[in-house]
């Protein structure tokens, strides 16, 4: 009975902080897509005699992230050397944090459940190794070396693959809302390791296994499901779990043994002598807090208070780009916010999805979206006309200008509508007779009438006049 076991999950998430320069040197961080080793300087290459200098912006972003995760950030914090020999680290150590991380003991609420954050600390990233199939050597690109990373570690309080996925989505949206990281897994700017053990409900924690190399939220969920089943099966058969480090094989959708875990002592951590420690003061924290933009949870509450549907409010609050457009479109809009939301999540999103475009890269002006919806609210445009105009509005056109320029406006003159109705009725007396007794036959008249009016008439008004004519 595998169902008897429940997984206990902790996550370690690495985020690249979006600074201009690297964490300990003035080397630029915008290496993505650049030639190998062109975003390097003496410090990045670990040349003798170089000294690290701490990037103020990386510290500020770490503090902001910590505050968003309800962490303790005030007080003493310092860097440590984590020593290991591997070609991706030319210094032969990583500058990380050990016993005194910058962020401590926070939490995040996930669907009403509290997930504890053990810590978040600053460190530098390593270079990237490639292993060409043709050669007995590896190739090293140090552009990534020295990138500012924040690593956050959760308590083992996540209970399912689905909860892990939701949690990751929340961390990404918090990081993006704060502007501290692009948190883009595809570019390696958000990476995740999973610690997972299984136990029978009520039992003490079991032996955990670490799964590395997870570069998408989907892989995280799949790896958790795979490991839960694998470990449950071993325990069920009377076996024991060994504390291993596993890799994730995305192709085969399974975990594989990478190595038996080194002890922490093997890294021979010691306080980094080249960097003075930090004393984070209440004033520094207050300054960072004052700069903090609205968080997803606060956005969600604001949207709900505007009467926006909960499922819509959820997706809007998690997306920086959608909420930015919505908030800007809401400025000076007096109708129901949901009207704007319906267009944004409906036709606008459909337009973008169909063209694989991102909202930020489209030419849509939030004021134009507002204008379009206001034209519908005012009865100037029908929904159908607005949908047609949207194609141009998405290309940057102002809907008011389009309406004026083309003389577009809903036909709301009863005389014009009545004339069209009369024409259609005269042309098809048989259907008219049917329609007088059978309400379903009315549609056979309605269609041609709308067509005659070029789809520009208000459908309710057409129905109203048509019905009164059929009755009369």
């Amino acid at each position, binding site marked *: 009975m595998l169902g008897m076991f429940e997984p206990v999950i902790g996550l370690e998430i690495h985020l690249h902080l979006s600074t201009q320069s690297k964490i300990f040197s003035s080397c630029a961080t915008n290496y993505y897509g650049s030639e190998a080793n062109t975003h390097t300087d003496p410090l990045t290459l670990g040349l003798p005699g170089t000294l690290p*200098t701490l990037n103020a912006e990386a510290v500020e972003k770490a503090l902001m992230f910590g505050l968003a995760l309800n962490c303790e950030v005030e007080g003493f914090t310092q860097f440590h050397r984590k020593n290991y020999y591997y070609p991706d680290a030319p210094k032969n150590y990583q500058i990380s944090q050990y016993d005194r991380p910058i962020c401590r003991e926070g939490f995040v609420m996930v669907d009403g459940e509290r997930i504890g954050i053990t810590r978040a600390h600053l460190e530098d990233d390593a270079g990237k190794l490639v292993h060409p199939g043709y050669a007995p050597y590896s190739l090293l690109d*140090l552009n990534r070396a020295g990138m500012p990373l924040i690593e956050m570690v959760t308590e083992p309080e996540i209970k399912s693959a689905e909860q892990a996925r939701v949690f990751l989505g929340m961390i990404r949206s918090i990081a993006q809302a704060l502007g501290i990281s692009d948190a883009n897994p595809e570019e390696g700017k958000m990476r995740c390791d999973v610690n997972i053990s299984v136990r029978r409900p009520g039992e003490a924690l079991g032996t955990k296994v670490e799964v590395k190399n997870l570069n998408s939220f989907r892989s995280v969920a799949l790896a958790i499901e795979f490991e839960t089943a694998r470990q449950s099966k071993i325990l069920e058969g009377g076996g024991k779990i060994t504390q291993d480090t596993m890799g994730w094989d995305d192709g085969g959708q399974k975990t594989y043994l990478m*190595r038996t875990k080194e002890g922490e002592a093997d890294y021979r951590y010691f306080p980094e002598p080249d960097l003075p420690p930090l004393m984070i003061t209440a004033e520094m924290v207050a300054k960072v807090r004052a700069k903090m933009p609205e968080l997803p949870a606060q956005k969600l509450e604001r949207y709900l208070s505007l009467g926006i549907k909960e499922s819509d409010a959820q997706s809007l609050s998690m997306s920086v780009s959608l909420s930015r457009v919505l908030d800007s479109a809401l400025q000076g809009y007096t109708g129901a916010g949901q009207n704007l939301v319906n267009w944004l999540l409906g036709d606008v999103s459909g337009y973008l999805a169909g063209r694989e475009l991102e909202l930020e890269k489209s030419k849509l002006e939030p004021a134009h979206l507002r204008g379009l919806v206001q034209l519908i609210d005012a009865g100037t445009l029908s929904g159908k006309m607005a949908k047609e105009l949207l194609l141009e509005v998405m290309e940057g056109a102002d809907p008011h200008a389009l309406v004026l320029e083309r003389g577009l406006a809903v036909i709301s003159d009863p005389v014009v509508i009545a004339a069209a109705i009369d024409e259609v009725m005269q042309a098809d007396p048989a259907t008219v007779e049917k329609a007088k007794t059978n309400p379903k036959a009315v549609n056979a008249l309605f269609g041609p009438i709308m067509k005659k009016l070029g789809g520009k008439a208000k459908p309710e008004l057409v129905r109203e006049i048509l019905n009164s004519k059929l009755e009369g």
Partner: protein
Amino acid sequence: MIDSSHTNPDPINPNQISHAQMEHLKNLARLELSAAETSALEGDLNKMVGYFQQLSELDTTGVAELPRPIELVNIFRTDEVGPMFSSQQAMDLAVESEDGFYKVPRVIE
């Protein structure tokens, strides 16, 4: 310089660092040492450990933490981009290179 004549076992507490631990440390530090060098280092390390044990006998209750001997805190650099190496400059420093990459011993986990 490693003084290979110096093989005196630690006077305070011999065998604090075992031979097996010594081999493990050599591996972590990627050091290739002769038997004589290893044994000399083992002696030196044991002396150091003994010294730290002596220090830890001090009662430090109520003594404030001194993380660094120099009282410097909060030294920051403004987030500005400075000069960087060109591919050529970066490769000029390499023992071996290929297509702008450093060539390193094959490592695959």
